[in-house]
Each structure stands twice: as structure tokens, then as C-alpha cells.
């Protein structure tokens, strides 16, 4: 019997008072794909960072290929054949692909021979695994999908036979994700061991051989993928039964609430991020904006929310709103009936050091009902905050606790409670469930649907295609600052939307991934052109 490629015994790790990993044991056989699934903060990434020598475990033993191994730093991990693709890439942005590949794995003191060798090796790897990439391109000019390729190539160049991928599909279009999985399949067939960390149940079901579930720092189960189901895994992750689909009746759209015409946004670096888009959202419907992160969705939300400037026209309930200068601020937008649940709740949605009750009135704190003479009516606000927190099931239900002490899901509920309870005509929602645990996702989705059913207009931006497909009544796909098209969610599928997300409007006659590649190459050329010009 062969020894497991990786065996962890009793790994524990604490960050201050937070026990990120508690007595974790796991064993992964060579030539398999092992999934690790769990909610945000369950300790998946910490565990893998320990295996890669990025963190040091407080307790526990690591066996690699049957041998007890100390992994005090990443160098030791690389030496025993472990490679890791982090969720946030560890690439030097203004270096070329080649330079990033050899960094830390140079042949000698001088660079020239190392670069030449890496160039040859890269061509070889590209052919073998369909990982085509221009070795001289700068990382900052590459699409995120291609940047990820560089990370994988980095690991392969170092002859890794154990590959750890942390949430690899979060930044990919569906077609790119499929291609990644084909590559992983291929690597497995060659006998390499792969650990896939994800929070997406579908990916686990599609590709893994075995799966471990983590919850609150503990490993709650390890099962064969073929012997489990998404529902069973979700229950193991959350600790109770969860509904994976959103319950909703067909929308009954009313009058137009939001009308956007020819909207353009130029960011502070002078790059045009939104390139003239037209959209309408009607009362009682959810318009979902799908797209890979960084294609102008954030800027769209910022302009609508009043904290970025743009040109073009925006009308809410028929009234034109200023897009720059006086009156183009969050306060004015709120008065116009727009509520906003921002994409980055920790930076834009909350003040982390303020209490929950302060956050719950923030932005509306000048409203007459919160005043008591010259001062704010703090007692009244606290009572009100308590009621709202109860209604939105915020746990723990303590208004005096600082926002930073709540979990991601509960922070989001605080933001939602603030925005929804003000009864807006239009709700802007960005990434409502990013970093939110499954149990809370269910609740948040239900709140958004309820608001729609009350006849409010909702503009939803999300990079999670599944979320868009299950919530939205209409789907618009954004790519490179343009709206590529609109679809009804029940008349489209992930393949079609995935192509739109890559900027391709017609079904190509060549393989999809090749078409996407060409599209991204084209974009890269454009960016390089802008830099030189």
C-alpha cells in the first residue's frame, strides 16, 4: 500500500484568541484531487498556509509521502514538492511572466541563463498542459485568468507534485474554470496530488475524489465525493439543513424606477471604466449584473451611489440626478430614494470600530426622527437598532458591539437592515454574499426577494453567476465597461453568460476557451498599446 502524499496529524493554530485550526487530521492519497470545503473563516486557508510553510502550526505533525517533515518556511515546502496557488496571487505586477516564474528558483547568480532555461521550459509546459502564455508580458497587463496560469506554471516549474489551489475559480469565467479543471484532471492522471479549497459545492461534486468539510476550525468530516451530495455537504458545513435554491414567484414589474443612459465613468487613473451604458430597472424586479470582477461593475455602483463622478444621465422615478459636482453625493442619492449595499462592506458599508447601532443609522443620522433637540436621540436609536437587528436576525443581537466583532454574514445583515428598513425605491446591492456563510446567504437572498415583492427596484451586482441566476429576473452581462447583452435567466445558461462575460457575443465556431483566450490576448495588446502610446 502506498503512503499518503500528505498526512496531517493534530494540527492546531491560533491567531491570538481565535482558534483557526483545532486538532486537524487529514490524509490525501497520491494521484487524487481532494476538496476542502467550508465557509469563510472555517480555517481552510490557514490549514493550507501551514502546509505551505506560510504559517507555523502551534501543534501537530506533517508527513509528506510517508516521511515526517518540518515545514518552517515556503522554501521547505517547495523542496518537498508542494506548490500553492493562493487566492490572492503572489505575483510581482510589474515583472514579466518569466521573471515571476524564476523568482526564488533561479539557477545561479546571473539571470540570463535562468531566463533562457525558463523560457524553454515554459514552452514545453505550455504545450503539455495547454497553458499558453506570452513569457514577456507584464503581469499587470494580463487578465486574472492568465495571471492564475502564471501561478500554476510557477508551481509546475518548481516540479511540484502536490498542488494546492485556494479558491481558484472565484476570478474566472465559467469556461476558464472548466479549462482549469481539465488541467487539474490531467495533472491528477499524471499522478500529481491536488488539494482544492473552495466554498462552491458544485466544484467539489464535479472534480474531487474525496472531500473534507471544515467548520469553525474543525474538520467535521471526510467522505468520498461519489458517496455524498451537495445537500449533505452543505449541512455538514453549516451544521443544519440549508435551502440551496431561492424560493421566489415570477416578478411583476411595474413602472420604470431607474433609467441610465450613456453613462460613462473615468476612474482616478484616467482609465475609462464604464463606456457608455444604458440600463433600466423597473419596480418589482431584480436586474442582475454579471461579469468577472473589474469590468466596470464597481464603478457603475459607485456612480449610482454617489461616490464617484460620471457623465451621461441617470433618472430615478423620472427625476434626473446630477452625476458630478453638487448634489452628486451619497446624501443626495439617499434623498432620491436610493439605498446602497456596497460591494466592500468593511470599507464602504460600515465603520468597523463603530458600534452596530451607530452603523445602523449612519448616513441617515441627520433624519429628523433620530434627533432630540440639538443632539442625537441615542436611546431611541438604540432601541430602534435593537428592533432592526432582531428582525434581521443579527447574531449576537447586541447593538453596542463594534461592527468588527460580527462575522461577515452578520455585518452584511447590519448593512441590509440599515438600507432596506429605510424603505427605498431602488436598492443597489454589490456582492451581497461575498464572505458570507451559507446560512446567512439564504437569509440575505430572501430579504432581497422580499423587497422586490414589495414592488421595489433592485440592481444586483455579483461575480457569482449562480447567485445572479437564482436571484435576478433579468441578467445583464458587463465586460470591459460595456453591457454585452441582456438575457432572461430561465432562457440562458452558464455557457452563454460565460461567453458574454469574456466579451464574446456570438457562439464561436472554434473551441470556446480558444475564443476567450484570443479575446483576452486582444485586450492585453490594447493595454500594452495604451502604455506605449
Amino acid at each position, binding site marked *: 500500500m502506498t503512503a499518503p502524499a500528505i498526512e496531517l496529524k493534530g494540527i492546531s493554530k491560533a*491567531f491570538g484568541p481565535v482558534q483557526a485550526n483545532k486538532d486537524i487530521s487529514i490524509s490525501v492519497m497520491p494521484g487524487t484531487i481532494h476538496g476542502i470545503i467550508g465557509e469563510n473563516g472555517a480555517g481552510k486557508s490557514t490549514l493550507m498556509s501551514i502546509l*505551505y510553510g*506560510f*504559517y507555523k502550526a502551534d501543534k501537530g505533525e506533517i508527513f509528506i509521502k510517508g516521511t515526517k517533515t518540518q515545514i518552517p*518556511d*515556503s*522554501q*521547505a*515546502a*517547495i*523542496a518537498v514538492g508542494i506548490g*500553492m496557488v*493562493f487566492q490572492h496571487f*503572489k*505575483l*510581482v*505586477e*510589474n*515583472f514579466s511572466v518569466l*521573471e*515571476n516564474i*524564476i*523568482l*526564488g*528558483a*533561479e539557477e*545561479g*547568480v*546571473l*539571470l*540570463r541563463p*535562468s531566463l533562457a532555461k525558463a523560457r524553454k521550459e515554459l514552452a514545453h509546459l505550455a504545450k503539455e498542459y495547454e497553458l499558453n502564455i506570452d513569457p514577456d508580458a507584464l503581469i499587470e497587463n494580463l487578465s486574472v485568468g492568465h495571471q492564475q496560469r502564471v501561478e500554476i506554471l*510557477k508551481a509546475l516549474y518548481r516540479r511540484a507534485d502536490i498542488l494546492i489551489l485556494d479558491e481558484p475559480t472565484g476570478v474566472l469565467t465559467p469556461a476558464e474554470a472548466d479549462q482549469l479543471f481539465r488541467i487539474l484532471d490531467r495533472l491528477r492522471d499524471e499522478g500529481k496530488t491536488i488539494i482544492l479549497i473552495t466554498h462552491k459545492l458544485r466544484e467539489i461534486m464535479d472534480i474531487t475524489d474525496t472531500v473534507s468539510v471544515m467548520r469553525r476550525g474543525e474538520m467535521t468530516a471526510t467522505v468520498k465525493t461519489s458517496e455524498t451530495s451537495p445537500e449533505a455537504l452543505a449541512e455538514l458545513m453549516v451544521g443544519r439543513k440549508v435551502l440551496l435554491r431561492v424560493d421566489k414567484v415570477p416578478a411583476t414589474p411595474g413602472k420604470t424606477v431607474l433609467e441610465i443612459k450613456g453613462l460613462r465613468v473615468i476612474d482616478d487613473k484616467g482609465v475609462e471604466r464604464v463606456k457608455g451604458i444604458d440600463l433600466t430597472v423597473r419596480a418589482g424586479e431584480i436586474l442582475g449584473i454579471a461579469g468577472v470582477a473589474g469590468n466596470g461593475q464597481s464603478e457603475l455602483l459607485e456612480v449610482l451611489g454617489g461616490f464617484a463622478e460620471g457623465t451621461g444621465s441617470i433618472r430615478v422615478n423620472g427625476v434626473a440626478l446630477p452625476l458630478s459636482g453638487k448634489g452628486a453625493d451619497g446624501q443626495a442619492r439617499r434623498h432620491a430614494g436610493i439605498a446602497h449595499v456596497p460591494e466592500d462592506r468593511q470599507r464602504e458599508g460600515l465603520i468597523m470600530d463603530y458600534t452596530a447601532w451607530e452603523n445602523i443609522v449612519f448616513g441617515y443620522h441627520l433624519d429628523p426622527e433620530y434627533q432630540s433637540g440639538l443632539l442625537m436621540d441615542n436611546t431611541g436609536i438604540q432601541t430602534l437598532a435593537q428592533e432592526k437587528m432582531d428582525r434581521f436576525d443579527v447574531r449576537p443581537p447586541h447593538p453596542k458591539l463594534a461592527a468588527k466583532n460580527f462575522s461577515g454574514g452578520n455585518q452584511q445583515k447590519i448593512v441590509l437592515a440599515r438600507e432596506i428598513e429605510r424603505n427605498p425605491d431602488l436598492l443597489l446591492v454589490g456582492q451581497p454574499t461575498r464572505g458570507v456563510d451559507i446560512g446567512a446567504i439564504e437569509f440575505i437572498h430572501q430579504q432581497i426577494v422580499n423587497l422586490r415583492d414589495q414592488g421595489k427596484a433592485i440592481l444586483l451586482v455579483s461575480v457569482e453567476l449562480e447567485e445572479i441566476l437564482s436571484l435576478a429576473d433579468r441578467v445583464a452581462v458587463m465586460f470591459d465597461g460595456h453591457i454585452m447583452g441582456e438575457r432572461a435567466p430561465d432562457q440562458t445558461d452558464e455557457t452563454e453568460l460565460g461567453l458574454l462575460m469574456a466579451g464574446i457575443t456570438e457562439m464561436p465556431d472554434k473551441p470556446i476557451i480558444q475564443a476567450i483566450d484570443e479575446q483576452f490576448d486582444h485586450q492585453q495588446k490594447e493595454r500594452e498599446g495604451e502604455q506605449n502610446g
Partner: protein
Amino acid sequence: MDFLTIIQVLDSTVRLATPLLLACLAGLYSERAGIFDIGLEGKMLAAAFFSAAVAYATGSVWLGLLAGIASSLVLSIIHGLASITFRGNQLISGVAINFLAAGITVLVAQDWFQQGGRTPSLPREARFNPIDLPLSETVADVPILGPIYSELISGHSILVYIAVLAVPLTWWVLYRTRFGLRLRAVGENPAAVDTAGVSVIGLRYAAVMICGVLCGIAGAYLATALQAGFVKDMTAGRGFIALAALIFAKWRPWYALWSTLLFGFLQAIALRYQNIELGNFVIPVQFMDVLPYILTVVILAGFVGRAIPPRAGGEPYVKER
């Protein structure tokens, strides 16, 4: 303005640009590795004093140079400890080093020499003296090229030539060696270096030490070559001008040479032309003296193009969480 005057001004430019160039390259190594260093000034000052003091005491300018480098290295280690090991604020550490150097040099100078915070004048043999390059006498009479060679190129101290040679050397180290690749990477994204299995701390200390050595040479040059002895605050803001030149040079070695030459040129002009008369209007000497500083402010205010500093500059490296 005749040809000889031009040559003399340029000659003076080279001499005045040398300490700026050395300090600028020192800052380049440090900042390319992600460690901001506004303590260049203090390190040069300390090196200026200790090199002069040791050169005076021993009569050997080379021992003086070593003492200067050593004192600058001590301050570098302090900066390294504060900003790399203890992850403190790099600006505050730099400011502290400047104050420390300004105070301690005068204090120790007064204690050792009792001359009001200065060292005695260095005799000729305790200084770096001009070197006449071969044939400089012979070709001096050749028109144009002759004076350029014998006046401008020849006749500087060894440290000037070291400074100029440090430019291609730095370029080569930065862009052609493994160390340079890693150094640039650690200033851009230390996490990439760390996960590639290379020590971030080791690299950053190496950079800070190189910075110390170069600042040491710059300081020694001030006190034992440009002038003959140490006087209070003799760096006169050169460390800060070097920082401005570094930004102007966009953190690149060859640009550093040109930008420090520009600053040196302005200083040379101010030195040469005390009052410039333009018709009825006289530009006072104070204005000329202040020119390099005005240029510094203009550059630091960001009027000269877009300079993108190393992305991880100024931030201590902490693994996530």
C-alpha cells in the same frame, strides 16, 4: 562665458554631484527593497564626522573612510531593526536617525577636539586628493578635448570615480543578477518573495546595509575630499536632495546619475556666480543658493512627470492577519 569657464563649472558640478549620487544610489537600494529611508542625511553626517575624526587622529584617510562607513552602518542597523525587525514606521525611524546624527556629531566633536563642534582641518595626507589620470598633462594643450580630459575627467579624488562606477554596477546588479531580481521583487510584493521561498527580512537587511555603505562613502567624501574636515551640519540637506533626485530618477540608476548631475550643476552655478546681472536686474546670490532646494520642492510636489515608487515601499512586511 568662455570655454574654460564652462569646463570649470562642469568640473565643479561633478565634485558637488558626487555625494548626491552616492546618497541617491544608497536610497535606491533601500527603497527598491521597500524600505523608505529619509535618514540618508543623518548617515552621511555621521560618516562625515567619524571619517574626518579618524583620518585626523590616525593620519590615514582610508581608515577614516572605513570609520565613516562603519558609523553609517551602525545607523543603518538601527533603521533596519526599527523598520524591518520591529515593523515600526520607517519615516519616524529615519527622522530619529537624522536628529541623532545631528546631535551626536557635534557633541562628540566638541568633546574630542574642543573646536566648537568641528574637527581640526585635515592635513593633505589625511585627505582624498585629486588623482591625475595618465597623460592628462600631455593632452592638456589639445584644443577642446584636452581640457575636457585633463580638467573635467582627470583630477578628481578616487571617491568620485567610485561613485560614477557605482552607477553601471548598480544597474548590472539590479537587472542582471539574481540578487537584483529579488531586491526589486521585495520592494514590489514581498509576499511573492516570501512564498517563493526567499527570506524577505534577509533581502531587506542586505539592501539597508548596502545603503549604509554608500552613505558612508558619501559622508566621508564630504569631509575628506570635498572639504578638509568636519563642520556642524555640513551635509546641508544633501540627503534630502538625494531623495528628491531619486524620485526624479524614478528609482533607476542611470537616471540617478543625470538627476544628481543636474542638482550638482545648480549648486556649481550658485557657487560660481554670486550675483548674476541681467541688464538692470541683479539676481541675488541667495536666490542662486536656494535653487537646488526649490527644484527639490518642485520635484517632491510631483510636478515632474509621474513617478511610480516601489509598491510595497514604506510598509513593513506582515504575513496576512
